[in-house]
């Protein structure tokens, strides 16, 4: 079973790498949408803006957060006149800051102990939905 699993996995990787036309499409888009990054692992360009925070990117608009990184490390509020803008509420600014940390906030070490982390799991740790401390 395990050997078959690995063979299937490798075959899938091979197919994913060579889906025809995928490289060309994305290289064309790079010039006007910045370089491709995918820190949250969904396979979709992170740089697209989501101005209404509905979870659906505005694919035609570049994320203002993807502007050039500045300095070594930047603290404090947004600069006046920057893409972030001083008129945005604390709430909006926080969401953008948290988005910049999206790779830190979803670690993958839960394989063996998601129940333990939840502290209340009853059934198998791999489950579709959880309600009231019970994953079903």
């Amino acid at each position, binding site marked *: 079973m395990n050997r078959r699993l690995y063979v299937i996995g490798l075959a899938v990787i091979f197919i994913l790498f060579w889906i025809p036309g995928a490289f060309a499409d994305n290289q064309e888009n790079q010039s006007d949408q910045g370089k491709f990054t995918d820190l949250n692992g969904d396979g979709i360009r992170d740089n697209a803006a989501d101005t209404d925070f509905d979870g659906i990117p505005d694919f035609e608009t570049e994320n203002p957060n993807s502007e050039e990184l500045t300095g070594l490390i930047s603290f404090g509020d947004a600069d006046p006149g920057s893409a972030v803008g001083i008129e945005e509420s604390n709430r909006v600014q926080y969401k953008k*800051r948290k988005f910049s940390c999206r790779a830190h906030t979803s670690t993958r070490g839960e*394989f063996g102990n998601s129940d333990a982390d939840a502290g209340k799991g009853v059934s*198998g740790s791999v489950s579709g939905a959880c309600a009231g401390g019970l994953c079903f």
Partner: protein
Amino acid sequence: MNKRTFTFTVLVMLFSSVLLAQDSQNNYDPLGLAENLEFELNFSSGYSSNLLGDVTRTDDRNYTSSVSIWYNPYPALEIGIEDEYTYYENTFRLSSNLSKFSFGFVPTRETSPWTIYLSGGLNLLRYQRSTMSFDNDSYDMLAAIGWQVADQLSFRTGYGFNANTYIRSEVSDLLKYSTFMGGNWSFLGSNTIDLELGYSITAFSFVPDTIVIIDTLYRDLTVDDYFTDGYLLAFYVSPRFSRSIGPKTGISLEFNYQSFSNEDHSVIIISEFEHISPFAGVSEGKSIELDLKTYQFSNMIVTTGAGYWYKKYLRLLDGPFERTRVDLAERRVDELSRWYLSLELPVAIGHSDLLKSFWKIDYTNNISNFDQFKYYKWAFSTGITYRF
């Protein structure tokens, strides 16, 4: 719902109402509360054909409602409070109330190459009177740093802490320290490889297999007297490959391998808490998951995926314990396959409000060397969320 929970829920709703009234009636907001507060109301329901994931095939429906409030006094800080009540139709004893308090702190701006993230939370879970022995408090904390080395290359590392305390028993208390590090590299157009490594130390209670027999007959002993404290060491490695298929669709393939290094002589008592022991679900093993996400359909997020998990649990022992051979405890080994499909329909209302509904279907098949854990199940859930 007990008196304290009811009072807490009422206070949260009153607090929300007052704040909203100030803004909508007077349009006067000297503290910037309105624009820096966010509320979320949620109602969802679900059905599982095998709620407990065992041969009892207990099917049930559940209904969950929750109210959440987030407040940002500064752009770097978020404070959250949430109350969630879940009602199980047939298995009423599992109905519960969960209160959450949390914070997030991101001192670095979004344009900073170095990013810092701190978060913490307190969860208070309370069951019904008949199952109140499961009541527990859990705490968690995460501190993480990221470094964007180049446009398509970044690294991250972090430290986490989790504690879980059963307030009416100490047998299943849990304390876990973990650390992780990872790297993310995008290359050749839209291909991304992400590699993460982690290590954890978990303090836990177990029965050592040097004890041959638990004997509570004719003696002034309980099962708890046989427990001892120890540490469970675990590491994991998880490579992930993801890429886009066109601008609105992405796929990812994730492997995960986790191994314990010192579990050989520990035995977990699963019936002590009717399988709710937090260690009953702790396992090592490997997994592979393939997921697809697409925004191809108008205003809809479609996610589907399938996965396979090979899981070796800690050695488990079931009661009754009048005279029980500890050295006969076996390791539960499962092969679990799962498929799911999820649809989300978010609708932005005005500048900042959001109405989101979702539907999810999930199928799980589990093969186990323990007959009681051979099962399959279907699960459906749907819900609606209003954020304003």
